[in-house]
């Protein structure tokens, strides 16, 4: 095994459960415990728990915290009330994406928690430091001191309420509460990456290990990164590295609603304004093919005459919908819904058509 790989606080639990482990974002992570389909269905129908301790937690505070976060973040945090969460991106000046992230507005004044992708923690932290010049803020990368689990699925409110002894019926989507575990701060938010109702719980690594065991004992199904990807994909959610990257702007990815171009400024704003005005060369679309063959990342999107007009970014035979579908980045001319586009899968070409990217009807508690 690569000795550069990091492990989360739950690594020993995964190994003990016999999980199939694989490197992801620099961590040795569980891909599946039983099989991807069963774990996927557990989240859609009941409740599953994911180890997401590899995610990064970066804390921003200081008199100019709001101005600073608004400077590096595409969405507008000035409208947030304490306990509220916003999704958005950090951009390069050319509009390419540094990362997509959640911003938590803390209950303390002038303080925010930024939750970033595991693969991007160091890059994001350096990006924040570099762009903080002139702002009176403190930036703390506290990722190593936090563990995190996501409990997801229609049964999650009942089981999380029971395990934590909290009434969570009033906690609505994209909001969080602070509480304590073993005398240390913990956070629970009604967020997730599956298209289902669910919670993400942040606490010390020791507390997270105990929570994990308690949730398993309560019948919550351990779920690996394999089904995390099938679930988020069906719900139309992007994965940094596949649907967003330094080369893929939020406008190209169809995520303009998270970019507030009416803010005075943020890094990358001018580039996005230009992209909106002039159009982008490529756009992210959904494509459905009428066959059980599976469009995988990297497969070409082709016209009837064989001309290549795009590439698949993520694709599956959808577990919940029993259809072969994918995200693909295609020449903008072919992006409108209903456009016939073919996908080349090995030696064969399969006819398909562009469809909405949210393949699965999400079930959030708003």
């Amino acid at each position, binding site marked *: 095994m690569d000795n550069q790989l990091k492990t989360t606080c739950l690594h020993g639990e995964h190994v003990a459960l016999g999980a*199939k482990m694989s490197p992801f974002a620099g961590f040795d992570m569980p*891909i*599946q415990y039983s*099989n*991807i*389909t069963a774990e*996927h269905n557990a989240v859609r129908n009941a409740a599953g728990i994911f180890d997401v301790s590899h995610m990064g937690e970066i804390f921003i505070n200081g008199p100019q915290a709001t101005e600073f976060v608004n400077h590096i973040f595409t969405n507008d945090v000035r409208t947030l009330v304490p306990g509220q969460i916003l999704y958005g991106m950090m951009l390069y000046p050319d509009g390419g994406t540094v990362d997509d992230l959640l911003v938590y507005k803390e209950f303390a004044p002038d303080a925010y928690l930024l939750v970033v992708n595991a693969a991007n923690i160091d890059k994001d932290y350096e990006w924040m430091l570099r762009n903080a010049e002139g702002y009176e803020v403190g930036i703390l990368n506290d990722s190593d001191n936090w563990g995190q689990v996501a409990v997801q699925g229609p049964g999650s409110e009942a089981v999380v309420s029971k395990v934590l002894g909290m009434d969570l019926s009033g906690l609505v989507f994209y909001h969080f509460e602070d509480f304590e575990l073993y005398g240390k701060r913990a956070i629970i938010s009604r967020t997730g990456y599956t298209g289902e109702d669910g919670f993400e719980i942040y606490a010390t690594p020791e507390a997270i290990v105990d929570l994990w065991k308690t949730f398993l004992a309560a019948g919550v199904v351990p779920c690996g990164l*394999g089904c995390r*990807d*099938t679930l988020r994909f069906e719900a139309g959610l992007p994965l940094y590295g596949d649907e967003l990257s330094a080369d893929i702007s939020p406008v190209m990815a169809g995520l303009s609603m998270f970019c507030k171009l009416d803010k005075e400024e943020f890094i990358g704003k001018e580039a996005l304004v230009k992209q909106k005005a002039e159009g982008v060369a490529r756009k992210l679309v959904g494509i459905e093919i009428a066959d*059980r*063959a*599976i469009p*995988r990342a990297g497969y070409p999107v082709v016209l009837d005459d064989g001309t290549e007009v795009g590439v698949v970014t993520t694709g*599956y*035979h959808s*577990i919940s919908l029993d259809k072969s579908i994918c995200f693909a980045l295609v020449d903008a001319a072919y992006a409108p819904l209903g456009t016939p586009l073919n996908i080349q*899968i*090995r030696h*064969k070409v399969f006819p398909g058509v562009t469809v909405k990217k949210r393949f699965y009807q999400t079930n959030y508690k708003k």
Partner: protein
Amino acid sequence: MSKILDELLYSESHEWVKVDGNIAIIGVSDFAQEEMGDITYVDAPAEGDTVAKGEDFGALESVKASSELYSPVSGNVVAVNEELEDKPELINEDPYGAWIIKVEMSDKSELDTLLSAAAYAEIAQ
């Protein structure tokens, strides 16, 4: 430890071959199906297609990944296991019973390059 049948020949890419006169019956090994996990789709050629030794003739798909199938021999596809169309999981359940294609070999000497069960056991671990 995965199962390896003594009476079969194997390729380094984990296909097995059962020889019946001029016909090579081809499937994938127990080791291969275990590595793949639950197989959800079998992409197989059609009857009458030609296959060439070492070239891919189709693929197995699991939820997460696809794994190409490489032909251990050259020849014409004379039969395709149509049962796998609706029941790809048969490969997981009975990898040595769930054959994928039958090939009428154009050059039986190609069999000499395949691995015995003992030699395959060395790489299937």
